[in-house]
């Protein structure tokens, strides 16, 4: 089984300031890691994903995340936020193909609401 913990439910930050949204996970099998963004009344949009290789992953809209296996973390960062980044962000995991998990759904955290202050 997998679980995801997003340590901050709300993060206010001033425009053009840097931001970090934290995510930790727990899993009995190897997993892929994802960050999704959800704007009001919309579905989820994939920001970035870690499948393998370099632990620093770059995504859309200037976001990046770093996978840390020893700390089981996958924190999301952006060096300078914009008003348009105001949204809810979800961290998620999914078992590796062939991990024996038997099921391939995403397991999500509870989300972090990012509010960018002008």
């Amino acid at each position: 089984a997998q679980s995801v913990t997003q340590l901050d439910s709300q993060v206010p930050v001033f425009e053009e300031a840097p931001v970090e949204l934290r995510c930790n996970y727990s899993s009995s099998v190897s997993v892929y890691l994802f960050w999704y963004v959800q704007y009001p009344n919309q579905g989820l949009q994939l920001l970035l994903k870690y499948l393998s290789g370099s632990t620093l992953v770059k995504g859309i809209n200037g976001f990046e995340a770093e996978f840390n296996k020893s700390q089981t973390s996958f924190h999301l960062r952006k060096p300078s936020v914009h008003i348009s980044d105001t949204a809810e962000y979800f961290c998620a995991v999914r078992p590796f193909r062939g991990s024996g998990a038997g099921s391939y759904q995403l397991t999500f955290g509870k989300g972090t609401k990012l509010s960018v202050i002008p």
Partner: protein
Amino acid sequence: GAGVSQSPRYKVAKRGQDVALRCDPISGHVSLFWYQQALGQGPEFLTYFQNEAQLDKSGLPSDRFFAERPEGSVSTLKIQRTQQEDSAVYLCASSATLYYEQYFGPGTRLTVT
């Protein structure tokens, strides 16, 4: 269409009514997933299909919930005798295969009064 579509976008049901929520996946996507997102929570897995086969329904909260995908394309999530605790956004996602990226639809917001 270019993306996953869901209908209706909003549904209000009186307690005890049956509802049916529709999902049109991206053309050619063989895998289809349903998630439930309660207010202030992250999405939670309900069930998924590989073509018309329902491979996992372990997330369905009760036997009032039923999903089908008879021709391996469009899927319907049915909730019988709705209860207030069923109020949530129901998200559908499709992927080329089980192991590929999931693309989400806009969701159906169900409110049970």
